[in-house]
């Protein structure tokens, strides 16, 4: 699968709360980050969890979020980051 995003792209995590086995943590939903690596394609865990084949595979990215964007009371410096593995279908592109 051709990756939709490249390293350096600004992305936003969809703000959605579907039921089921979801590997996208709540604390990044609706948050903006930057793609720092394109990891590869993996069977979709939201499908695998229910015994289905997880096809089509989803591209997995590293997305780096500034900690100050995740936690309003974050006490550390602005360059601190959280890097989360996020699947393609959870990401939307942001205007540069």
């Amino acid at each position, binding site marked *: 699968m051709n990756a939709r995003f490249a390293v350096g792209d600004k992305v936003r995590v969809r703000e959605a709360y579907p039921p089921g086995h979801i590997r*996208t943590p709540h604390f990044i939903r609706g948050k903006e980050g930057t793609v720092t690596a394109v990891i590869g394609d*993996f069977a979709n865990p939201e499908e695998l969890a229910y015994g289905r084949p997880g096809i089509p595979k989803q591209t997995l990215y590293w997305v780096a979020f500034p900690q100050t964007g995740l936690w309003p009371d974050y*006490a550390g410096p602005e360059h601190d980051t*959280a890097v989360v*593995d996020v699947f393609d279908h959870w990401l939307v592109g942001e205007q540069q």
Partner: protein
Amino acid sequence: MTDHHHHDDDWPYPHPKQPDTEDAPFTDHMAITEAVTELLIDKNIFTADDMRKMVEYIDSKSPAEGARMIARAWTDPDFKARMLDDVNAAAVEMDIDAGTIPIRCVENTPKAHNVIVCTLCSCYPRMLLGLPPDWYKSRAYRSRMIREPRAVLAEFGTEISDAVETRVHDSTADLRYMVLPMRPKGSEGMEENALADLVTRDSMIGVTVIKDL
């Protein structure tokens, strides 16, 4: 031997006894695990001996294997490049079985300190670091390391300068992580085996750094 102990009704020590395994609650999930295991064995999917061997194999894994790889990476820049590209393949070069789940190595530098957490469950690079410590699986570590990493690191005795980025990796999906700690000052000229002895489990999780010698 005569039994002079009457622990149940006369326990003279100030700390509580740890309950025997059978006295802890037997939960639904434990019952399901036992039932599924018995079914798999009864149906000859695998044998009880296969299961024992697998458990012993997992138990035999230890941080020493990850430490050997770190020491090699410190002494061989080409190996380090290959390890940062593909940990599982680099492990094969050293006759280490890192398994099939892709492991990523993240490198500490003077500008960035990496630390690993799995906020959703407790994913851990068992094939290179062995079984995870209990605190790694605790709700306190999983919820606090992502939210206030500097405070948690300080509790481990690790002070990270504000000039350095803390980079918390949340192991949410198909990867496992290990940290490549910075080689301590004063270790120049040490041999690979001696260097491996300096590498601790916690430094490969990223909650500590390796002190200069």
